[in-house]
């Protein structure tokens, strides 16, 4: 083989691998990404039951109910709308009413959000960034919250996976 042919083989195989990778990425991006939504956005977009997304907001005070077999029910609110959430498992240490959380899962036919992951943060002054941004956008952001968020140090993510 000449130098040119060898180089062609190299370039050809490089392009093949890249094309395969690009196809894989595009395919995966279509199926496996998860959108973030607040209860208000979820209502506006009318998300279909079964479609996975991340729901973020504050845990509505007074909504937390511990059920049988470690099942918990609570509502996530963004001030305008709220969505009931069901989760089975151990909640993160700093999961509290009135705190910002993100949960991942899907709506069931009755419009209840079945979460399989709940994310909270270790630091009580902390609010997940996505939640803070969404609340700011909807005008539910108080100056002291902003100060708190600024003060927040070393916030640690905590995950509860069912």
């Amino acid at each position, binding site marked *: *083989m000449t*130098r040119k042919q060898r180089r062609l083989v190299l370039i050809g195989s490089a392009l093949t*691998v890249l094309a395969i990778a690009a196809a894989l990425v595009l395919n995966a991006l279509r199926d*496996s*990404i998860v959108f*973030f939504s607040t209860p208000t956005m979820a209502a506006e977009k009318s998300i279909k039951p079964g479609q996975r997304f991340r729901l973020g907001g504050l845990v509505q005070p007074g909504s937390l109910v511990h059920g049988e077999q470690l099942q918990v029910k609570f509502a996530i609110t963004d001030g305008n709308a709220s969505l009931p959430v069901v989760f089975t498992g151990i909640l993160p240490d*700093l999961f509290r009413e009135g705190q910002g959380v993100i949960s991942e899962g899907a709506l069931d036919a009755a419009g209840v959000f079945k979460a399989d992951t709940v994310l909270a943060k*270790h630091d009580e002054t902390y609010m997940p960034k996505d939640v803070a941004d969404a609340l700011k956008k909807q005008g539910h952001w108080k100056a002291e919250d902003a100060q708190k968020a600024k003060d927040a140090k070393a916030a640690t993510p905590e995950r509860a996976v069912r």
Partner: protein
Amino acid sequence: MIAEAGHYALVLALALALVQSIVPLIGVRLSEPTLMGVAGSTAIAQFAFALFAFGALTVAYVVSDFSVVNVFENSHSAKPLIYKITGVWGNHEGSMLLWVLILALFSALVAIFGTNLPSVLRSLVLAVQGWIASAFYLFILVTSNPFLRITDPPIEGRDLNPVLQDIGLAVHPPMLYLGYVGFSISFSFAIAALIEGRIGAAWARWVRPWTLLAWIFLTLGIAMGSYWAYYELGWGGWWFWDPVENASLMPWLAGTALLHSAVVMEKRDALKIWTILLAILAFSLSLLGTFLVRSGVLTSVHAFATDPTRGVFILAILCIFIGGSLALYAWRAPELTQGGLFAPISREGALVLNNLLLTTACATVFVGTLYPLALETLTGEKISVGAPFFNLTFGPLFVALLLAVPFGPMLAWKRGDILGAAQRLVAAGLCALLALALVLAWTRGGAVLAPLAIALAVFVIIGAVSDLTEKAGLFRFAPRVSLRRAVGLPRSIWGTAFAHAGLGVALLGIVCETSWNSERIASVKTGEVVAVGDYEARLDGLVQRQGPNYREQVARFSISRDGKPVGELSPSKRSFSARGASTTEAALFTSGFSQLYISLGEQNADGSIAVRAYHKPLVLLIWFGAVMMAFGGALSLSDRRLRVGAPKPARNKQRLQPAE
């Protein structure tokens, strides 16, 4: 006083770094050996001052000097001494200081051990190191000064984030930084080669061991971080495709590719331009990792504080170094001479394939990590890209890579024989088929692909072993002869075999853990039993305990396996009053490579406590595999060729070295 002295030392280190980045360049331009020689001494002095600054901060932590803001915010007088010391890098400012300290250390090492390098190359490399160091000293002094004082010093500090008060954290950041920053050496060598416009034999001989060293530390650092997350965060996960994890995986992938292409360059003088590009990419990805983790664009355990000026500053450093080096590459690379020829099927060809797959896999991780950030900046839409994305993209590419791994070392340089290689891998293939059959016959459930993945892991491991037996001539010679041959093999061959087998071992652990992991979440009272896998854990009681800076609730479990008692486990929940935070300390029972994992949840009103128990079969193989890879790297690093092969100017010195 000590804080001011530390601050002053840091300013002096910056001044020295500036001298180191400019004067040697002038020296090279004017061909003036005295000016070029400045690089070495400034590099060593700069390291001394950085070490002094780091030492000053450490002293402030050890004596709990809360008049220093950084100490006040991250330490507590009741904290155990070890966590007072590790707390130095358990925060943004201190960890950046550790970063520059390691950078200065590497520069000093080049200055000390690089006396046999051509003087132009040595001064250029040190100058580039000086640029990087100057940028980061400026960053620390301008945006994240760890030595700031409080006018009205408080009596007690705010304590270190409790999850970081762990021995894993003592080791993980320095290891990771030794890896990240170690790639700066190959980067500086690449830039120096581009400026000089030529790459000689000294270049390849130097870049490979440094890359290898950085790679070993990065491998161990990633493994350590993963193990820390596994036992400290309390949910039993060891890899979450979290952006910060990806930030360390990307330089590892690029570094692994660099390691392999540098072999081609060293042995066959080919792939020069590509190796230079990889050297630039590996360090660029390290910088990107620093940016992602330190700038606050991501919220995670690593994002200590979000301050926009810091993000912008690091982004500027990132753009200047990555943009600048790639521009220099585009301008100068075509002038470098082409190297040796090789057929597509050859050792070189296999290494090119390895590079292709590794860099493509790295690119998919890059897309998955940065796509959500880019999308949010451009459209405001928030998405999260999680494990499913990476399983679908990174997974297949890595499977292809693993299939090819055993073939690589079997092929000859220049022109290889694929059929011959396949013949030598028949044993490995048969073992893989046997493993497949055994797994299919003995297990129920689990993923469909799991038995195939195990077969692949066995193929990789036995493939690595057959490379050794093949080279030692087992079955071809008498056993004694082949044993002697095996002992006489270069250590780099043993290193390759260990590292490749480690890959298979880690895969075995990953597959077994994900496919046959059993999990039980229950709410138990004293005397009740949680059963998971073959194990039963009986709750004997709950005890309160007082630690140095926390209170903990300990649950005592007695563990029995198939009815026989095997031990006790006491997971606990610690609450740290200074921060009002709590952590979950999981308890682990190890049997062989498998582990029983118990962590605690909330205590309920009726006195029962939520318990999460996992049985994780062969989970330790994941980290054992990584340690094997690092060990392989270390073996390869100790290879005779890298120690004594490099040309040395001083003849009499060489004679004094012990004979091998």
